[in-house]
């Protein structure tokens, strides 16, 4: 038997605030944050951002480290995670997977944040001139990763 995956639909504007509260803390080493904007440049409130990352050694099956987190943007469009810097998984460079859910997005948006521009099978799949848009900007222990859903300097998103 082969079933067809259920059709995705938008998260809508009324995702309960309590669902996103308190799930954005994975560790105390770095902060990953950024601003999320739409085509007209407006910053977006209550966008749900979920991340999935490896542990310090690049492993995804560490029972002592939860590599998953969730945050929602504030009224200025800012999301924040406190986490550890992931190690490089086998065959990859260090990265954090991002999932964006929001009103007006009929399907989830998938993207990946990188710490540097280097050879990586997923980063290399992105047209060369757009790859730098997936590299976070470092300010001390803060890594800034802005997401532009549509328009100028639009974030590359993946189709899986």
């Amino acid at each position, binding site marked *: *038997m*082969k*079933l*067809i*995956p*259920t*059709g*995705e*639909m*938008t*998260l*809508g*504007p*009324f*995702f*309960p*605030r309590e*669902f996103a509260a308190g799930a954005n803390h994975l560790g105390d080493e770095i902060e990953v944050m950024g601003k999320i904007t*739409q*085509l007209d440049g407006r910053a*977006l*409130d*209550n966008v749900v951002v*979920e991340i*999935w990352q490896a542990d310090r050694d690049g*492993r*995804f*099956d560490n*029972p002592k480290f*939860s*590599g*998953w987190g969730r945050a929602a943007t504030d009224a200025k469009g800012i999301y924040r995670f406190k986490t550890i810097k992931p190690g490089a*998984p*086998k*065959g*990859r460079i260090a*990265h954090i*997977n991002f*999932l964006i859910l929001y009103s*007006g*997005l*009929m*399907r*989830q948006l*998938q993207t990946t944040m990188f710490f540097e521009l280097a050879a990586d*099978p*997923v980063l290399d*799949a*992105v*047209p060369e001139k757009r790859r730098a848009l997936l590299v976070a900007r470092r300010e001390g222990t803060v890594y800034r990763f802005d997401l532009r*859903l*549509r*328009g100028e300097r*639009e*974030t*590359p*998103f*993946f*189709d*899986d």
Partner: protein
Amino acid sequence: MLERRDPKTQSEGIVAGYAQTAQRWPAEPLVRRPLTASELTGPHDLPKKLRMLRGDLAGKGEKRAAGQLIQVRARVVDEDGAPVPGAVVEVWHCNAAGKYIHPNDSNDAPPDPNFYGAARMVAGDSGLVELRTIKPGAYPVPDTGGWWRPPHIHFSVWGRVWLSRLVTQMFFPGEPLNESDAILNALRDADARSRCIARFVPSKTNYLVYEYQIVVRGRAATPKLA
């Protein structure tokens, strides 16, 4: 490996009659990437990370929420039809008058002090979660010239891996607003739409029973990756 989805069974990014989609869906084509362990593993400890919330939004006695009492039996399965035990399922919906518990809801329908509005549950061995609640109302979407959302329940589900994540909405059978809803009708395939509508199950209980099947991406035989 995960199989690609049939686009007919999914929405296009920009939907006529749903203006926000044109501000938010990317203009550049989505990039096809190779899938590695990073995308094909997923959160293994969500029940530890997320507090479970009651699967009963209706209350009892004097604390009963207004509206028709219902039970939703939602079953999470993979593309092989195999249950996904341990799947975390979040649901939220508006009250019987069409009002959400959310500061951004500007609809002037009355709140219901006995209605809660959000639940988080873990699927049992058969992939089943049972939600006791009231049937949500319909409500008008502001600034759209008469678009009414049909009664629906929002679902957020985790399957076995990161790419199995599913957010969708469950609809009720026989609702005239289903025919014109921009969100339900964004699925181009009629069968795909009908699978988003719950099945009414006749029962002798004091609540109406609806069954709903949620199919998350992935096959049971997906190999474990390091």
